[in-house]
């Protein structure tokens, strides 16, 4: 890619210590929320981060902006490692990045009015003198489709979608170079979602904004993002240019996700059991490929080792993905489990 790399995350891991089991006698365990995740974002590029609920997307987003824990790894912003930055370096990170939080109510101070909440950001970042501030606030509210009459309301007097848009306005007020948008349109109706998506696209191009767009709405991700990364249980399992991933997913989890998109189409009713079995726990990660207990294509090899990424710009961590150990010449992920030579002999 020709655009300069804005963000380069290398081998990031986040672990949360867990309380000992109820009697306080059990071993000290930890929860692997993010394991060894690498990701690059170029200036002007939007990367979609999708995946299982609880797979570590928000934890990852918070960690790279240093708003949450970080156990291991590097986070290079313009080549400078921010993972352990302090003082002036950390201040630069705060000036140049912004996060739109997943929980719109929780991330707003309930005592501040909309005017104060946005004004505070403008003030801290020295964006406007007190005189121009109100005008800028109105402008920001307009950008996210809110009426200036809401200025003196507090979060408790706003609807879910209105709160969410205050969160977006606060992020835009910083005029950042990198935004992590965590489910930023989930509470909005489709028309306003569209407005926000159009706005983000425009800003991306005009201001060369890099963005990580965390979302469950795959149709929106497909529309907005240049590339997409799919997370399962703390790891990225597939990554590639958006259209390629949607048209020919290379990881079985991605395929299950795409099949579970609710569509207005009588020919595409939801599968009755999208993923069989129980979701595994991040406290006791399964051996080998973490998806194998639920994978429709799983085979004995999947249990032994974490599959490495295979492929180029479009890559997946699966031994059945094109280029993987069991599909070295294949072009696509197989539809059904192919038998290995030994299994074939056994069944004969």
């Amino acid at each position, binding site marked *: 890619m020709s655009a300069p790399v804005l963000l380069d995350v290398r081998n990031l891991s986040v672990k949360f210590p867990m309380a000992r089991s109820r009697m306080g006698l059990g071993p000290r365990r930890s929860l692997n929320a993010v394991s060894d995740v690498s990701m690059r974002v170029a200036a002007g590029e939007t990367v979609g981060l999708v995946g299982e609920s609880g797979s570590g997307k928000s934890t990852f987003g918070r960690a790279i902006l240093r708003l949450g824990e970080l156990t291991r790894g590097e986070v290079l912003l313009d080549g400078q490692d921010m993972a352990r930055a302090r003082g002036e370096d950390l201040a630069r990170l705060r000036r140049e990045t912004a996060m739109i939080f997943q929980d719109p109510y929780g991330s707003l101070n309930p005592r501040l009015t909309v005017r104060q909440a946005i004004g505070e950001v403008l003030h801290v970042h020295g964006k406007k003198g007190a005189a121009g501030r109100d005008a800028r606030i109105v402008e920001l509210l307009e950008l996210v489709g809110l009426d200036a009459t809401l200025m003196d309301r507090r979060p408790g*007097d706003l609807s879910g979608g209105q709160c969410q848009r205050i969160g977006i306005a606060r992020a835009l007020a910083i005029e950042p170079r990198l935004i992590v948008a965590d489910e930023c349109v989930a509470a909005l*109706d489709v028309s306003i979602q569209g407005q926000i998506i159009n706005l983000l696209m425009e800003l991306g191009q005009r201001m060369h904004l890099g963005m990580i767009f965390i979302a469950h709405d795959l149709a929106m991700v497909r529309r907005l993002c240049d590339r997409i990364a799919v997370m399962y249980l703390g790891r990225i399992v597939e990554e590639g240019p958006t*259209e390629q991933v949607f048209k020919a997913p290379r990881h079985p989890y991605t395929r299950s996700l795409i099949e579970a998109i609710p569509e207005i189409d009588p020919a595409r009713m939801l599968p009755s059991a*999208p993923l069989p079995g129980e979701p595994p726990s991040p406290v006791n990660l399964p051996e080998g490929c973490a998806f194998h207990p639920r994978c429709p294509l799983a085979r004995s090899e999947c249990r032994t080792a974490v599959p490495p990424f295979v492929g180029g710009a479009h890559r997946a961590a699966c031994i059945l993905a094109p280029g993987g150990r069991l599909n070295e010449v294949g072009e696509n992920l197989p539809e059904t489990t192919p038998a290995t030579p030994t299994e074939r002999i056994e069944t004969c």
Partner: protein
Amino acid sequence: MTDAPILTVNNLSVAYEGGGTSHTIIDGVSFTLRRGEILGIVGESGSGKSMTCRALMRLLPSSRLRVTGGSVWLEDGRDVLSLSQGELTQVRGRRIGMIFQNPASHLDPVMSIGRQIAESIRHHRKIGRKEAWARMLDILRQVGIPDPESRANAYTHEFSGGMRQRAMIAVALACDPDILIADEPTTALDVTVQAQILRLLQQLRDERGLSIIFITHDLGVVYQLCDTVAVMYAGRLCEYGAMHEVIHRPRHHYTAGLVACQPGSEGGTGRVHTIPGQPPSPGDMPPGCRFHPRCGAADALCAARQPPLRETHEGHACACHHPVGIEAEAEA
């Protein structure tokens, strides 16, 4: 679905009064919910979907908000709006379960998730601690929380957005209600978990006759789940009818716009289609049809007179002076 209405909402209105001003937030909303019916409520952000559901359970979030009219009949003929506090408490957990839009503020931050659910079960039913704990684990498993035995001891802040939402669903289902009011219960869930929850709800409907009001922005979810749909715009119902009718033959211009905004499965790049203009703000509603400033078919009549909600076809009502497709059909 049977014909017996389990909940009848009639002309429900809510007003905001404070700071010397007063304005209507919900304006005469009526609908019925039958046993085993799944009703979807869609509509623009801020149109009053959450407020309608809160009002009908008498759970308005602020003292400045007041129900100014209407009735909410239960199956047994009682009006929720005139129940005593004691009766109301009983109706709430036991008959009607509610999943709130913002789970974080309805879960207790200092009590483990498991205990909260177990206590709410014990609050409504006379069963022992152990049994309640077992039932809680069972429900957590049903809503797809991995490894519930160890995760039940976690606190709200240790749960991901989607896990909180599922905990909220578990709280609402724990007491086996007859009616479930679910305010955007799947927005934080990935699509496979969402599909699992939608199936669970359908199963509860089929097996136990659970009736559900499901607020969502996702017309795909409506299509996969609901029997009927109500569409809200600026505090009013603008369309109401059988799901296939409303989605395939929207009559109100706002609904038609919403359906057209659906990003569709084929992808495509570039700007997303949106409905031009902005929704009106509650203190400053346009006269006549509240959608008229944004409507392509609006004329002088639309600007002057409020269109009543009336049936255009059997089981399909719409509040519009010039419903989409009606004249064309009449001529043909």
